[in-house]
């Protein structure tokens, strides 16, 4: 399936035509402790990552937060 990830078009292998947010982050190898995830503009909190499904055409943003200021 093809989605927009951080404003880039990317293809993912998804046998069931969808991936959970957790699976998507794992596929990218993103294991940062603090990430803000939005799917089609809506905040998806960490406790929803396993249940929230991403499908073809979705716009996903995953923003890594690190300390410093």
């Amino acid at each position, binding site marked *: 399936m093809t989605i927009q990830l*951080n404003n880039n078009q990317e293809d993912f292998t998804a046998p069931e035509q969808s991936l959970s947010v957790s699976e998507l982050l794992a596929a990218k190898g993103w294991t940062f*402790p*603090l990430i*803000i995830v*939005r799917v089609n*503009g809506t*905040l998806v*909190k960490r406790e929803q990552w396993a249940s929230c499904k991403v499908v073809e055409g979705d716009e996903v*943003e995953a*923003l*890594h*937060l*690190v*300390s*410093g*200021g």
Partner: protein
Amino acid sequence: MNTRDWYRSVLSTKTVGIAGCGGLGSNCAAALARAGIGRLIIADFDSVSEANLDRQYFFRDQLGLAKAVALKATIGRIDPAVKVEAHTVRLDPKNLLDLFAGCDVLIEAFDDAAQKAMLIEAILQDRPELPLISSSGLAGWGRSNSIQVYHSQNLIMIGDLSSEVSETLPPTAGRVAIAANMQANEAIALLLGDKT
């Protein structure tokens, strides 16, 4: 009206909230004050320490003062016309919504990543229409061009999204102030109706 008078007259009617008065918040506040912002709502629980002087917009004679109080005094010296509401408080998901309720733009200027996440999640959940300018990834020095502006609807992220502060990668004055001034710059553009 010439363009300088126009932008200053527009900004003089606007309110910006700044969550955190450290390296990001203090430098951002100074830039917004110089640009003629009408009102600032600033908040920080901490007080000025000697180590803060390596990058934060404070002065040696302000050591020990609450940061929000010291920053208010400094802004008053830059431009006494800027109204400053200073809060010495530890922000949480509840009090920040009340404290920044009247803002046109909110700047996330915390140091700690968990605090950044707390504020961003609270705003995206309860005030998604409020423009929020956050920052992530500004540690170290050099690599000026790696500090990017990332737009996600009403959320703007500034930084390289990867350089985390550590023992071997401390924050330094130039790079922190670049990010802080980029936050101020994006706020000004939003307030003037320039979304480009």
